[in-house]
């Protein structure tokens, strides 16, 4: 079964009287174990596509299926629960909760989903080790470099054992070296079987994925 499937998805934003179609019939499938890069210039509808894949928004027309289930059939609360648990987000910036330490940030999704204390502590320590930041466990986000922040964000995104790691320009604010390190982690995770979808406008970064989906004007570029 596909982890996520977009079927002829339209998203039309309305600003006053004007209708702006951000997506015009986008269809997309993500299979387990894939590392997909969604590519496209700015204004191509990548971000809207990411909202759809991440179940953060509901399409105007068309269907979004998460593990075969139409998300339109879910209530707001159910959707929030499922989204939080099954999809791990890594955003471009401001990923971390500034008032919490690195360790607490990694634990936050597990606390939201009420994991047991034992699980919370074991898992968060294990994940910090995975991204190589065990020694920064008690640092606050303001004390971390951009690359370190993104690695913490990845650890956090993984904490609830999601089906899918969804990253929106994860290296957008990083220099080449730090960006490379982050991409290495994605590749490493994918090699271990984690499904990754990454939104980017950068060809070089997209090349790290094993499948590239190109978008233009709100639909797939053919």
């Amino acid at each position, binding site marked *: 079964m596909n982890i996520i499937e977009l079927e002829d998805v339209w998203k039309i934003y309305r600003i006053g009287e004007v209708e702006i179609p951000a997506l015009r019939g986008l269809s997309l499938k993500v299979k387990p174990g894939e590392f997909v890069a969604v590519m496209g210039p700015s204004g191509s509808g990548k971000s809207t596509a990411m909202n759809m894949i991440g179940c953060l928004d509901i399409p105007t027309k068309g269907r979004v299926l998460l593990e075969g289930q139409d998300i339109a059939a879910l209530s707001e609360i159910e959707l929030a629960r499922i989204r939080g648990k099954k999809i791990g987000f890594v955003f471009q910036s401001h990923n971390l909760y500034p008032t919490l330490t690195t360790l*607490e940030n990694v634990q936050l999704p597990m606390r*939201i989903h009420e994991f047991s204390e034992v699980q919370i502590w074991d898992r968060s320590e294990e994940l910090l080790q995975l991204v190589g930041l065990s020694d920064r466990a008690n640092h606050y986000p303001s004390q971390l470099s951009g690359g370190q922040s993104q690695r913490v964000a990845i650890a956090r995104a993984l904490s609830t054992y999601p089906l899918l790691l969804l990253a929106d320009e994860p290296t957008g604010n990083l220099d080449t070296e730090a960006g490379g390190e982050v991409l290495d982690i994605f590749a490493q995770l994918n090699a271990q079987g984690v499904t990754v979808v990454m939104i980017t406008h950068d060809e070089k970064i997209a090349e790290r994925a094993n499948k590239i989906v190109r978008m233009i004007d709100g639909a797939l570029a053919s």
Partner: protein
Amino acid sequence: MRLLDIFLLSLSHVKKSRMRSWLTIIGVIIGVASVVAIISIGQGMQENMQERLGNFGADIITVIPGYFRATGVHSEMHTDRSVSTSSSINLTDKDYKVVKQVPGVMYVNGIVSGKADIVYDNEKTVVSVTGVDTSVWRLMDTTGIDEGRYLQTGDSNSIVVGYNLAYGTFLQPVTLNRPLTVGGKNFRVVGILKQSGGFGGGSDTAVYMPAEMARGVITEKVANNQFTSMVIKASDASLVESIKDDIDQKLMSSRQVNPRTKDFTVIASALIREQMSGVTQTLSLFLSAIAAVSLLVGAIGIANTMFMSVMERTKQIGLLKAMGAGEREIMKLFLIEAGMFGFVGGIIGVVFGSAISLLIPFLGVQALGFGGDMRATITAETILFALGFSVVIGILSGIIPARYAARMRPVDAIRYDQ
């Protein structure tokens, strides 16, 4: 999300923005402190009043010559003056008989009071003399005997003295069986009253003797068949008001006066007490309302801070929602934070308010013309009320910002540019 985890998350916010949190809390502190101080002072005032009025039994009605249109505070407080200026219209035997026949009247004490010189142990001063009906006085007095006995029927040269007169007026305390001279006549002390603490300390510095003796010693002229006042004990405290009206009517017809030419006043101290506590209650309610305004300002401060932090944290709200937090959890997160401001502000405010209340007696402020020192009474109820109220106010002022935060769509929140 577990409540404890939401609480810790709220706490992390409060701790991170210390300056702003404290400024918000100070607003609450000022409000709560003023409310606590004012309620405590109001309560102190009321208790003060109760104690001062407490010695007039609830079943006692007093008739004095002279008419005071404003029945209440003044007629009660200045009985002495009214007597001395209206000696020509004293109450008479006839009035005594009329009053005695009013249904519900148990005892009537015809009183002859005035001033006289007192000499004790070669010291001389002026004293209030209260001449009483020895047959009923001991049955009606509410002060109580400290030492010795009340006056009895048949006593002639015996007197009972007030507590302060016995222990505070002369260099040597007045003791039982000691001779002293009042208005040139010799008396023997047979009893000392307990301290009453009543209005102006009247009964504490007075001497009590049989009415017929008083007529001979006081400087004022009171004829043999006249009294300067009558104190009446009603058979039932609950009937005081109707008995008072009855006495009023009967005396008006026997003295042949109408409400315009009325020359006497009937006072029921229980009614005065009600009136007085009504006045103090209104007063403290009014003051509390003013204090509540400062609490309101504190509440607005909380709301303002909460709105600011909701705006600042839009991105974080988006993150929490992306991670699966629902509206309820976001709502709780902000409400707990607002409630914390209220609670901490409440606790510190109560401490400050209590401190202010405790300092009041030392400031020696006179209580709004009632005489005596002002004091404040802090009760557990006041403290709990203030604490509860400040938490509720904190939460209430957090509701709108919290709801605003909770209803943000995750997409908008995440894309929000800081």
